């Protein structure tokens, strides 16, 4: 009865597979976990991920290996993340709103949507800031906006890339100050911004607190405002846009951890608890603060809601950015 034997053995294999899967969830993790970062090694997303991984892996009992998949503004890495099996062994850092704008930009033809992720926990919320060279004629945000109204489209304003949170923040500022228009110069990051600002090739830069706070403290550059509800602990003397009368100009770049969609709830809970504990660890707090990165832990509904709100906001400004004539 060869057919029967075959049939039985197939069944046995299937059974083994099913029970194997079930037990795999129970004793998760029983092999190293990969944590994908969609940017090259050495960047601030990478640094923050490595810090939390090194602390969390002690509690997890398995190594958490950082996998850098940089390129195409994060698209390469996130494409890889959504393609993984949702078994918890491959998770990745998502950077809102960069992840959102990759999805929202039709030119990108991203193969994933916001629904392809299982958000687990947010780690960092790094608010946006507007900054100029120390000897710039723009002493306040009002100076800058007045100038942008007086001669629209002449102030060379640096982003950290097209459809970056900084790009969106410039559009928010234009929206909040009707008549003000900036000339957008898309640079590829904080270091390039600093160089071009110091060399006088751009007039003002939009970036995040973490990338520039040390240079503000040293007096090389001046921060005009922080785009948040509350003042940044790294730049306590810099007013928020809200204080200055622009309550809608709230912008930041976040780093959180997510898995591919369809991750079972027990896995999410387990990972979230371990990661949360690691993020509350004094060592994590200290190391992130050295980088000027403000920790903002969000989990569960709060994080889901933040994701959805950021997506809606990014959608509005992405469409605007696409239709805005370049200046």
């Amino acid at each position, binding site marked *: 009865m060869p057919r029967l034997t075959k049939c039985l053995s197939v069944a046995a294999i299937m059974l083994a597979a099913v029970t194997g899967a079930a037990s795999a969830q129970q004793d998760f993790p029983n092999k190293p976990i990969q944590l994908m970062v969609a940017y090259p090694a050495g960047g601030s997303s990478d640094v923050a991920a490595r810090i939390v991984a090194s602390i969390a892996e002690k509690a997890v009992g398995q190594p958490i290996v950082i996998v850098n998949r940089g390129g*195409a503004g994060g698209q390469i890495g996130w494409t890889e993340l959504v393609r993984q099996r949702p078994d918890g062994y491959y998770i990745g850092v998502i950077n809102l709103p960069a992840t959102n704008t990759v999805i929202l930009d039709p*030119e990108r*033809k991203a193969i994933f949507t916001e629904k392809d992720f299982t958000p687990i926990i947010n780690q960092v919320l790094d608010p946006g800031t507007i900054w100029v060279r120390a000897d710039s004629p723009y002493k306040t945000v009002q100076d800058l906006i007045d100038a942008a109204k007086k001669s629209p489209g002449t102030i060379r304003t640096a982003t950290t*890339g*097209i459809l970056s949170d900084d790009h969106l923040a410039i559009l928010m500022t234009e929206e909040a100050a009707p008549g003000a228009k900036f*000339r957008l110069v898309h*640079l*590829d990051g904080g270091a390039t911004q600093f160089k*071009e600002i110091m060399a006088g090739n751009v007039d003002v830069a939009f970036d995040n607190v973490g990338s520039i706070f040390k240079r503000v403290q040293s007096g090389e550059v001046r921060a005009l405002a922080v785009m948040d509800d509350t003042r940044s602990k790294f730049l306590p003397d810099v007013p928020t846009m809200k204080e200055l009368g622009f309550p809608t100009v709230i912008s930041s770049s976040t780093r959180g951890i997510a898995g591919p969609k369809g991750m079972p709830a027990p896995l999410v809970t387990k990972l979230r608890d371990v990661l949360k504990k690691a993020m509350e660890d004094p060592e994590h707090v200290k190391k992130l603060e050295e980088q000027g990165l403000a920790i903002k832990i969000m989990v569960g509904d709060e994080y889901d809601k933040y994701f959805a709100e950021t997506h809606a906001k990014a959608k509005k400004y992405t469409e605007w950015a696409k239709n805005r004539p370049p200046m």
Partner: protein
Amino acid sequence: MDTLAHLMAGLTAALSFQNLAFAFVGCMLGTLIGVLPGLGPAAGTAILIPLTFNLDPTGALIMLAAIYYGAMYGGTVTSVLINVPGEAASVITCIDGHEMAKQGRGGTALGIAAIGSFVGGMVATIALIIVAPPLAQIALKFGPPEFFALMLVGLCLITGLGGGSVLAGLIMAILGLLIAMVGIDPVRGAPRFTLGIPSLYDGVGFIPVVMGLFGVAEILLGIQQPRRQIIKADLASLLPSRAEWRRSVGAIGRGTGIGFFLGLIPGVGSIIPTFVAYVFEKRLSKTPERFGHGAIEGVAAPESANNAYANAAMIPLLTLGIPSSPTIAVLMGAFIVNGLTPGPFLFQERPDLVWAVIASFFLGNILLLVLNLPFVGLWARILHLPYPYVCAGTLVFCLIGAYSLEQNVFHIGVMIVCGIIGYGMRRIDMPIAPLVLGLILGPFLEKSLRTSLEMSAGDFSIFLTRPLCLTLLVLAAIVLVASALRLQPRELQEASTS
């Protein structure tokens, strides 16, 4: 003294056991590549990049730089012993070096070459330390328009000085730029020319392309070359006699100077400095008739020039982000793979890394002297390896390397296709260097062009109203026109037509 403090920190880092080991392995591998005929420094560095994927960036770059100058060093052995240059920069060494070997002075020829290379490398590195930081400071003042113009000058120099017809050079440079266009648009983020293949989203990988163009192509070319007679050199007397010393000291000094200054000019390539040094020495000599019959100056000068050039050529790379030769372009690719963009920034952002790499040049040169002088007999023995084994081994290494880049079979295909294309182009005498330079500079060229136009709201006059930018553009035009009209110094012409 800021530089000195940085250098000391760099030396400390380079002297760590790990980095010292990387420099040592790099020197060994480099010398091996140099010794193996047909496999030049560009091919060797390209093939060996995958070896460094799992290292930290500092270690990886120390090792690759060591491979690079190690290969420049190692090429001499074959020039002297079998009259076949291990790499192009040792062509001229064949003339007197092989003649010396036939006269039984092969050991001395190899000895003086090692000493000359050592002096050239050390002096050029010291000069690099003095010149590079201020140059990087100046370069920081360059805006996107100036960088655009500067890269254009670099490309024109490569195209013009590369030898052969300027038209062929231009075609290849533009081909390189076109290949560089494939992938995600650096400003708008939209995929271009990707044919819907996700593997092309990050562009046609530079590393598999150069592994193909140099590595695979050189293996294919090597298969066709006839085997040469190996001279058994008398390696007992490595050190020159007093009379030979007297002749060599000046030659080493002049060769070092020539190599260093030509190394500052992108596009000169590694062959021209050796030629200029040789011709210069011959003209200066009271007994020029000895040249071609085993004159020791004919080995000392070009070998010093060769290594001074190799180290000096790091200056435009580290300070401006302009690679001056295909090998340096491959090295630049290695920086980029490691997430670092060579250029004035690097001195500010990663002084630890830059200075550790620079400091490793000193150690590398010392290691090479040690490796070359006593062990020269060992290297000579490698020449006896049957070529089929060497070529099969190298090919397997290339295949594994291309795959390990991103665990992607697609890159193997890219490498093989580029290998065949590279072979074909060599056969019809199309220069590869402009293509490689176009390919690596393409994204930077495009980015700076588009950023400039964003700064001016689309007005092209931004390139004409900034004095430095205009000067550089005029210079680029002059270079191109002059090379089209063959208005080159005589030495350069002799070198490029040989």
